[in-house]
């Protein structure tokens, strides 16, 4: 993608092009994230396309992977937001306009494609915000509140989750340490077969007595 985006330098074809203005690092990072995301989305789509139902845990793990990739792509985009906002894209004279016309039009498009417009409209509707009735300050306030609630939910989720973590020993209030004895593997205090000999035959274990009680 970034190979096709040329910027800065001279327009003259025969002069040496100056790429110093190209935000190569930013574009490369984003390209990596996006291709990862694309790959896992494709995998999920293929899974669904297969006949029969999939195992829930494979789907869930793939969804988790996709979500974390989406997160990293979003954060990368946010990180380079300023650079990308100030970057102007235009084709070089040697760009093969006829063979790659569709690519060029997509890349140079200023307006959002209809699908994206739909997403934006939906997001606005879901958020319950109305720019015509509320001024910027109010909207910002609402967004800030929303972020705080999200943060609170995330932290309390982690806290609650820790309460149900049964892998560790819980020594909180309510557990009297005196009633939970220290673990020690029990020793065999006597020979079970010896006890059985007594229970079924009346043969006392040897350490107690040498003469069995049987009066026969």
């Amino acid at each position: 993608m970034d190979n096709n985006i040329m910027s800065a330098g001279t327009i003259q074809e025969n002069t040496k092009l100056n790429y110093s203005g190209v935000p190569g690092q930013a574009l490369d990072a984003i390209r990596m994230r996006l291709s990862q995301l694309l790959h896992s989305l494709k995998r999920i789509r293929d899974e669904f396309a297969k006949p029969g139902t999939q195992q829930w845990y494979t789907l869930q793990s793939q969804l988790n992977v996709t979500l974390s990739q989406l997160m990293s792509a979003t954060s990368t985009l946010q990180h380079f937001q300023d650079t990308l906002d100030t970057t102007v894209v235009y084709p070089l004279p040697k760009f093969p306009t006829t063979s790659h016309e569709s690519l060029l039009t997509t890349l140079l498009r200023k307006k959002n494609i209809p699908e994206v417009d739909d997403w934006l409209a939906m997001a606005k509707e879901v958020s319950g915000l109305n720019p015509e009735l509320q001024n910027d300050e109010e909207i910002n306030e609402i967004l800030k509140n929303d972020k705080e609630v999200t943060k609170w939910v995330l932290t309390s989720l982690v806290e609650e989750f820790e309460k149900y973590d049964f892998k560790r020993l819980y020594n909180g209030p309510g557990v009297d340490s005196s009633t939970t004895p220290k673990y020690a593997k029990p020793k065999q205090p006597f020979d079970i077969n010896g006890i059985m000999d007594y229970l079924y035959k009346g043969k006392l274990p040897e350490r107690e007595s040498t003469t069995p009680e049987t009066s026969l």
Partner: protein
Amino acid sequence: MVQQLSLFSAIDDPSYDLFISTIKTISGNPPVLFANVNTIWNLNPDNEVQQINKKNQLVEPNRIKLSTNVPLDILADSDSSDSQSRAPRQLDYTLMKHLQTDALPVIEGELKSLLKNSGINLTSDSDMNVDSDVKQSNNNNQAWSLSMSDIPAAGTSKKVSIQLISESSILFTDSNASSLTAFMNGLGYILDYSYITVGSKFFFPDNLILDAYKIWNFDSDKSTQLTKGGLLLKAYINVSKNTDIERINQAEKSLLLLQKELQGFVEFSIPDRQSMDSRSEAPDII
């Protein structure tokens, strides 16, 4: 006639607390304190019983066990030195922690009168004359259970011990003078030895019962604890029909599940089947 599937193990006294809390958690039920007195009866050697087909093992003389419950209010604390007033601190599973000595866990006088009421007199020797001085009190009829057990099933691939047990209940032996000794003598049996078991019982789903108990041998003058230093554990399921293969398989599965669950803490195993053989050794008569 029941088919009893069982597994045995033992724990030492210091592990009792942890054991109780573990089993309480697994079974979801609290422990139940129990106390039994058991008397084992063997063939009277004075009777000249012909050993018909003894060689072919068609007729095998077997010991008989008679047991009944000991009322919990006559249980005593064997740790306290005062033999007369040894009332236990608490009548629940914690009692087991105070029963670590040879002393009988019951008030002896009470036990003797309990046995006497049923016509068992320990003070004289085993071939005693029952008609003599045993005072009968018929208003205190204790129900006894009579049981005979076969040697556990053979086979090295067995995962649990499987034993056939025949049981019956004795409420009265005679309407006027109920006497177990007279009854058993009539069958040709005499008292061999007696023991007391006291312990905690847990009930699991699938009719699985887990007993943790101590055993005291007693005769007229002395008593010994056979399980000194620990408790015997017995996990068992009784299947009433020995042809009910499905139920037996299910019971075996339940026992093995418990064995697996407690692995690393309590190791359940099958005792030597020879040890669980209650057939009386051929008394060399004539």
